Every structure is written in C-alpha cells, then in structure tokens.
C-alpha cells in the first residue's frame, strides 16, 4: 500500500512536469524543423534534421532586434521606477505613523485587484493629450508605480526591527541615509523578488502597449510577435514564429531561473500574509 502510494506520487510528479514542459518543447522543436518537415502530416515528434535558419529569418521579416531592445528599455526603466517608488512608500507605510495611514495603504493595495481594462480608455486619452501617444514615455507613465510593489515592500519593511532604525536616528543619520544603508540591505530578497516580478510583468504586458503604440519601430517584442503571426500564414513558416516566441521568452526565463528560489518563496509568502 505504501509502495503503491509512492509510485503514485512519482507518476503524479512526472505528469506535473510534463504538462508544463510539453508546449515549451513543442515551441523549440517547431523552431528548428525545416519548412518541408513542418508541413508533414502527421507532425514529427522529434525533428529529423535541425536547422537554425528561422533564428536569422525572424530578425529579417520584422524589426525583431530593435523590438528586443525596446522591451529591455521599457521593462528595465519600469522596473527601476517601481523599485524606487515601492521601497519609499513601503517604508513609510510600515514605519511612520500618520492619520489615515492604514486606510490610504489599503486603498492603494485594493487597486491591485482593479482589472486594467477599467481605466484603459481614459489612460489612453491622458497619455495622448500629453502628446505622448506612440512613445516609450507614454507606455511607461502608468507603469512608474505598482500597488503590488508597495504591498510587498511594506510587508517586508514591517519585519525590519524598529531598534535598528531608532539606533541610526540616535546616531544622527538622515532618513534617506537610514533607508539606503540600514533598511534596503535587509530588504535584499524582497528587492530581488519585486525586480523579477516587475520585469516579467512589464516584459510580458501586451494590452497597454498595443493600445498606445502605433509605429512598429517602437514596438516591444510581444507586439513584434503578434505581427509575426500575419507573416506565418503558411505552416511552412511556423519555425520563424516559434523562433521569435522562443527568443522573446529567453530574458524572462533566465531572470526567473537565476532567482527562482528567492522569487518563488517570497511570491508565495504574499498569499499567506
């Protein structure tokens, strides 16, 4: 009976690993098949010959290289800004006392549950009346702060002992100095977690850039990908689309794998607290 349960657990775990991996596997093998092999029915489950032509073609048919650079820029600046605004706000919400603090905090955090579509139309109008439609800055403006970031930083700042902050104050350190030299070093796991979260979130965001940007030289890579789809009218060109999808996924996967232990642990903590 015990043995049976153990076998069941192993089989279950194997299934749990195959289910997420299969589409990623399919993405890879479809990107390295030749056009002739791609149009075969039934499809081959393991490519007979590998060709990496699609990985150069994808950079020719759409401006894929500049799209990657655009994504790095937009997601990078967005992430930096979220870190700065969230650490500041999280610290104040955790360690300062002022009237209406908790009401203000929970109101801000409540907007975490607001579907972005609710504010899409006026946001577009605001951005375009500022003359920022079809610009990086237009995409970035609403991304400079994030309620989840504020929430995460406040939760972690609560764990910073008051004594440390008080001691630094007695020593005559200014608040910004205390934040930078005493608090932020203690927050390192939280900072890493938020950085990965924000980077992945902004890298993958589609709806807002789609609504704001028009010229393809400003497109982030997810928009370039959706353009690729119109190129792949024939199954023969699927390898190009899959190569694009794979290249576009590499940065987020790498960032995640490098930090996964800390990231998963801290993201899961947010659900318990």
């Amino acid at each position, binding site marked *: 009976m015990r043995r049976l349960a153990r076998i069941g657990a192993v089989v279950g775990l194997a299934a749990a690993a195959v289910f997420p991996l299969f589409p990623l596997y399919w993405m890879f093998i479809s990107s390295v098949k030749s056009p002739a092999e791609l149009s075969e029915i039934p499809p081959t489950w393991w490519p007979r010959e590998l060709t990496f032509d699609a990985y150069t073609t994808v950079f020719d048919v759409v401006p894929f290289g500049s799209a990657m650079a655009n994504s790095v820029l937009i997601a990078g600046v967005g992430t930096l800004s979220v870190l700065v*605004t969230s650490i500041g706000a999280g610290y104040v919400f955790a360690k300062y006392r002022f009237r209406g603090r908790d009401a203000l905090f929970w109101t801000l955090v409540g907007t975490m549950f607001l579907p972005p579509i609710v504010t899409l139309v006026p946001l577009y109008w605001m951005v375009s009346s500022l003359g920022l439609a079809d610009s990086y800055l237009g995409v970035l403006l609403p991304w400079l702060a994030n309620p989840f970031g504020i929430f995460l930083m406040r939760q972690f700042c609560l764990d910073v002992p008051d004594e440390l902050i008080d001691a630094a104050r007695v020593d005559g350190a200014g608040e910004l100095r205390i934040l930078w030299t005493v608090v932020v070093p203690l927050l390192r796991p939280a900072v890493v977690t938020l950085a990965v979260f924000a980077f992945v979130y902004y890298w993958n965001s589609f709806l807002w850039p789609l609504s704001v940007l028009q010229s393809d030289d400003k497109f982030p890579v997810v928009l370039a990908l959706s353009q690729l789809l119109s190129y792949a009218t024939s199954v023969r060109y699927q390898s190009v689309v899959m190569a694009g999808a794979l290249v576009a996924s590499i940065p987020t996967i790498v960032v995640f794998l490098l930090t996964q232990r800390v990231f998963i642990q801290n993201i899961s*903590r947010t659900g318990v607290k």
Partner: protein
Amino acid sequence: MTNVQHQRRGARGHRGAGTLLLSPALVITGAFVFVPIVLTAWISLHEWSMYTPMSEMRWLGLDNYEALWASGNFRSALWHTVVYALMVVGITLPLAFLLAMLLYFPSVRGRHVVRTILFATYVVPTIAVALVWGNLYAPGYGPLDQMVMALGLDSVGWISDPDVALFSIALFNVWQMLGYYTVLLIAGLTQVPAEVFEAARIDGAGWWRQTVSIIIPLLRPTLVFVAMIAVINSIQVFDPVYLLTQGGPSDATNVLTFEIQRTAFQFGLAGQASAMAMSLLLVLLVLAGTILAARRLRGTR
C-alpha cells in the same frame, strides 16, 4: 523610552523625508489609477470617439448603459467571461490542490525541480506561448488533435468550434497559471502545524478523511484567496483571444476585456466602452462587498 514614544517623535522630526518617500507612489497612482476611474465614469455618460478632442463629447446621460443592456454583445461578453472564469477556477483549483499535496507531503526527490518547472510557465510571455498553443490546437495536424485521433476520437475544432473555443482558451490559462496557484497553496500548507497531521494519523484517520476534514478546512483562507486571484485574472483575459480567435468563432470567445478594447480602439466608441468598463467595476465592487460582508458575518458568529 518605549518604542511607541520614540517612533512618534521620529515621525514628527522626519515628516519631510516621509512625504518625499511616499509622494512619488501616491502621485503616480493617483494620476494614473484614481483619476482614470473618475474619467471612465464621466466618459461613460457621453458619446465620444477617443480619437477626437474631448470638447466634442456629447452628453447622453445613462443612454450608453441602456444601450448596453439592449445590445446582445455586452451581455454575451459578460456571460462568456463568467463561464470562462468558472471553467478556469473549476479546473485549476482542484488540480493545484492536488499538486500542492503531491509536492508538499511525500519526500520524493526532484520535488523542487518540478515546482520550478510548474512555476516557469507563469514567467513566459503570454503572447509567445499563445502562439505555441495556436500551433498545438491546429486542426488535424496539431499535436493535440493527433493525440485525440490516436485515441480513435474525432478531430476537435479546438479554436474553430464555437462550442469548444472558450474552453480551449481556458485550458491555456490553466496551463499558464497552474504553477503559480500551486505554489500559493504549498505556502498555505506550510502554515498548517505539523502536529495537526500527526494527531490525525494517531487517531487513525485515513488519507481521504484527513484531506477532506482537516486539510481543506485549515487551508480554506488560501483556497479562497487563490480562487479570488484566479477570478480577477480571468476577467483580464485578452492576449490569447486577441491572438488566436479575435473573439470568434461566431463571438464564442468574445470576453469583456476584448469587447471593451475593440469597442474603444477599433470602433472608436469610447463612451460605450466606458459604460462597459464601469459596469464591470460595479459588478466587482458588489462582489467584493459581498465577500467582505460574508467574512464579517462569519467573524461575529
């Protein structure tokens, strides 16, 4: 000196710094979340194409809302969103619970690797994997259809059959979010004291009994939280619909976010789109209010 006194004095002395640290987040959230909510409400009372200046808005009162309920489009988009959310929660929650139990209890090697793999789908760009799923769902030659036909069944119109397409979009979401929810549930399980399981085992409670009468009740806050996140996430579904079905076939996957976006940006009917957005917000507020009230009721009992 007590902590509280000290903190108060500190707060007074450092008010300037506090304002400096807090205001960027406040100003940005105020300008790009709270102001737009008010604007959405205002625009929803007008006829306006967002590609013309706001001075050309025409006052309509509640006409947009009346038009919404008269038009089948909005009602069907709302209905599709509800069905989609129910499918997602109905499939994901039991699966995630099962996986969480599997990854938390037995001491099998490779658990952490499986957890990382499961979670990884969450970080891959939705657009990128939606392209792959479009491929998996391909009629006839797609691998999913091949598997189905290998079982001797008929080819399924995964995204071309109006009866199946919404389910296929939901299945894609299950694939992407399952690991995230599993990890949240594992974190919930770690909060359950080990003695509880020990006690149950000594009492001779079987595995099934133990799960149903001990683990699920203790895990309920996390289960509710995950269900809530899954519903909120379901309302936002847009990328796979935009990429794979454009709301079709015959509007079967026309969900709210897609309908609002195209009403505003493709048809230029910003007033109508805003009325839909406001209706969605009101529905969510009523839901949130109900949940909070239920929780308070339970608390007083």
